[in-house]
């Protein structure tokens, strides 16, 4: 049960993000929901790589007995993936928020029900 706790948390965060995105009308809050979903994705990645009682995957900081197999380090691949996805997330967030700024300047609203000049 305790081992599954991170995954349950992932589910809760993801659902919170989806619900935020669907139920809020302010476009900045929708973007907040998006970041919640992204946090869930990153959390899932890190949780997958975690191993109980293991050390950080840094070669020179490993004690002598832990280098030999079976190695007891957490998976470094998923951490690299998480980092990449955070970088992408930052870029997305910057892009989306600049879009929101431009829209606010021209439309004067952040309500997504009013941002619908393109329809039909």
């Amino acid at each position, binding site marked *: 049960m305790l081992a599954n706790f991170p995954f349950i948390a992932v589910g809760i965060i993801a659902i919170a993000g989806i619900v935020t995105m669907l139920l809020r009308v302010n476009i900045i809050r929708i973007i907040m929901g998006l970041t919640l979903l992204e946090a869930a994705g990153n959390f899932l990645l890190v949780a997958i790589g975690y191993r109980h009682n293991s050390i950080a995957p*840094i*070669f*020179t900081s490993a004690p002598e007995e832990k280098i030999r197999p079976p190695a007891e380090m957490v998976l470094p691949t998923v951490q690299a993936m998480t980092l990449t996805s955070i970088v992408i997330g930052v870029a997305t967030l*910057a892009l989306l928020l*600049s879009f929101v700024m*431009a829209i606010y300047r021209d439309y004067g609203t952040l309500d997504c029900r009013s941002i619908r000049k393109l329809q039909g």
Partner: protein
Amino acid sequence: MSKIVRSAADLLYPFILTFGFYIVVHGHLTAGGGFQGGAVIATGIALMFGANRYKVISQQIRGKMLRTCEAVGLIMFIIIGLCALIDGKSFLYNWLANADWLFGHPVTYGSNTGDLYTAGIIPILNIAIGIEVLGGLSLIILYMLSGVSEE
């Protein structure tokens, strides 16, 4: 912003930059690296943007310079990656590892504090990414602030 804020920001600014550069350069030894360090540096620049008036600060930290940083960092990354092709190795092959110059010193086994001059091209790539990220993120902040100040 008030004078207190400006003074405090001026005081903190070099320390934030130093810390950012530390993270960039030690990316191959500790947690961190180009992106994180670049982000830390960008927070320092964001602090300066926040503390000073936009008109004043955009004279000191110019968008043109930041854009050059961004382009130079990325080109440096790709060029270093392509250097390996000359020797018939793959793109991004670590051609500097164990070469005994610059960052090419071999890694000592066992538990140690780590040597800065190891890991081949990885620190150089970290520095390239650091330059790129500090340019890119600061540019984003600069543009967003320029959008705000128009109103």
